[in-house]
């Protein structure tokens, strides 16, 4: 990423963030630390968005991924830059883990001309072509066939790329999921359907929306290799994704990966909302104990790969990047009304 001043993609960011700290050699091939740095960075970014949301400078809905960082990290670090992801309304972490430009993302949330969509889309449409973030789409399920179509193009052109459709546990209820999955299966497309099961669709629990059966079944019924794993374990996510990527590149067709996880904050917006009654504090606490970032930190500490000094260096470096990106977003001008007419 020497060609411009964009934020580097995550795997590189992980390295960059640790550069000059004396640990380089150790980290170079250190997946757990890379996963950790990616998650920590996303956590800090989302927390900072939440903290600043009340300033009313980010005047669009935000769907934060706090608590779900292991999925984006594990999936996206298993991909190459030229692989494509299509995300949803809850797009920030996917975009960032895949290497999307932090400045362009925050500027977009601020409605600025320097935003990745030039202010046209807001938080639910973020994309980054060089990073392989093809599109994010706010209509539930709508991106699933789009990712599948990207995979069709890859197959038609004989390129060894892979496409990933991120989706929530609600998106499989949309018929379009099945339509895309069936087509992907018939044509053995290099697409991975990543279902982040956080148990809720807005405030509606899974159990009133679907029969009490493993989500996996919905990939398997289309003859798609399907598997479920702990979505708060970034290494598990990474290794299942890597296997799916290998299968896809080998022409063995699509996969359906279900990762169980939990959204900590409200569906849309910056707050904790365990008080409003759709889920229990106890349920929330159970999941918070399984904090993907904390679990990984503990593991790295046990393995001697992380200590307090290292942690504060990381935080300092990440926070500096975040502050700089917010400065950029705030300083950027709003787009001029006339510009809205540009399109053909």
């Amino acid at each position, binding site marked *: 990423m020497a060609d411009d001043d964009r934020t580097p993609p995550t795997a590189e960011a992980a390295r960059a963030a640790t550069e000059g700290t004396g640990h380089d050699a150790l980290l170079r091939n250190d997946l757990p630390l890379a996963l950790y740095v990616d998650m920590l960075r996303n956590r800090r970014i989302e927390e900072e968005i939440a903290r600043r*949301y009340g300033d*009313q400078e980010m005047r669009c809905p935000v769907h934060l991924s706090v608590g779900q960082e292991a999925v984006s990290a594990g999936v996206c670090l298993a991909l190459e830059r030229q692989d494509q992801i299509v995300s949803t309304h809850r797009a920030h972490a996917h975009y960032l883990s895949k290497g999307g430009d932090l400045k362009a993302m925050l500027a977009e949330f601020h409605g600025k001309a320097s935003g990745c969509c030039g202010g046209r889309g*807001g938080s639910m449409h973020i994309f980054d072509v060089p990073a392989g973030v093809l599109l994010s789409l706010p209509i539930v399920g709508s991106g699933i066939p789009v990712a599948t179509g990207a995979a069709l193009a890859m197959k038609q052109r004989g390129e060894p790329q892979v496409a990933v459709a991120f989706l929530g546990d609600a998106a499989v209820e*949309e018929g379009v999921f099945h339509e895309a999955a069936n087509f992907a299966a018939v044509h053995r497309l290099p697409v991975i359907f990543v279902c982040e099961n956080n148990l809720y669709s807005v405030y509606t629990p899974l159990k009133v929306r679907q029969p009490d059966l493993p989500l996996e079944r919905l990939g398997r019924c289309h003859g798609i290799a399907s598997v479920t794993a702990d979505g708060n374990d970034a290494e598990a996510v990474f290794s299942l994704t890597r296997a799916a990527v290998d299968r896809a590149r080998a022409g063995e067709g699509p996969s359906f990966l279900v990762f169980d996880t939990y959204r900590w904050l409200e569906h849309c917006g910056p707050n904790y909302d365990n008080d409003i009654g759709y889920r229990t504090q106890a349920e929330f606490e159970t999941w918070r104990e399984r904090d993907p970032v904390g679990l990984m930190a503990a593991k790295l500490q046990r393995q001697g790969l992380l200590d307090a000094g290292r942690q504060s260096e990381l935080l300092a470096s990440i926070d500096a990047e975040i502050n700089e990106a917010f400065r950029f977003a705030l300083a950027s001008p709003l787009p001029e009304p006339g510009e809205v007419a540009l399109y053909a």
Partner: protein
Amino acid sequence: MREPASAPRRLTAAAAILEATAQCMQADARVYMMGEGVADPKGIFGTTLGLVERFGPERVIEMPVAENGLTGIAIGSALMGQRPIMVHQRVDFALLAVEQLLNNAAKTHFVTNGVHKVPLTVRMIIGRGWGQGPEHSQVFDSVFAHAPGLKVVMPSTPYEAKGMMVAAVRDDNPVIVLEHRWMHYAEGDVPEALYETPLTGPARVRSGDEVTVVASSFALLEAIEAADHMAAAGVGCDLFDLRVVRPLDLTSIIASVRRTGRLVIIDTGWKLFGVGAEIAAQVTEACFDQLKCAPVRLGLPDQPTPSSRGLARSFYPNGQILAETVAKMIPDAAHRLAEPIKALEALRLRVPVDVPNPAFRGPF
């Protein structure tokens, strides 16, 4: 239209819709409700709060995210005599259900030679605000209005919101209720009794002789402000709330234009191929000889809705633009309207373009 018996109270349109729904469900066991969020703690912008506690989850059905299927399910139940109210938090989500709506809901009464009825009400939230962007802000009134067999209504005030909701639920065939998100915040007098306002024809909300103005949904609230300012300056607007996009009954508007000779229509959605085109065309056909100038349409420019308040600044018609439009249509009005235009501009600048009121703080 039955005269409401009880004394009015001030309610928001959201509260009025909630009351209408509760009363309909109370009065008729066949009425039930289905939608993503109808039983959740936010209750569709407050319009369904408490219903599940009162009527139970069998009648307030929290649905999987499957708009097309659930619309078909609502239709099937309606064919069997139930009276479903289906709710979409955004009209944009209902695009997935267009086949069911434009075919099965709209055509079944026709195709069965009048034997079947489809007493289905579909609420769809429309419109702008808080950087929602291009896919959480659309309107599509003219799209649904293009399909014979649907009724399409757009309440603009709490009074109408309750009355039309009741009428929609009691209607024996499908009614699409397009509710502007910001209309939910509007306050007004609402009788407590169960009453309905008819799903036919526009309503005159201000009288005047110089220009006929037709506005619907949230645009009406801005038009009222503009009309009142213009009236104070001696320019009388005959202002109509369109209310019902289909069946489109322009009798009263045509009578008005015969008198004023001038017509402005404000679309809530895109101007191009919008509702205003049909109104302009029909009124021109009906009163060509009385028209002093061509009907003017205001509406959204020919672009998807941008998220950024920077881009949204010039995206929406508003009271100021309406007054400026009128000023250009009436030979001597520019002078008379200079003050009102300034006042309307000042009012407009008091509230950012992306919120309905200064208290609004997002996130949706």
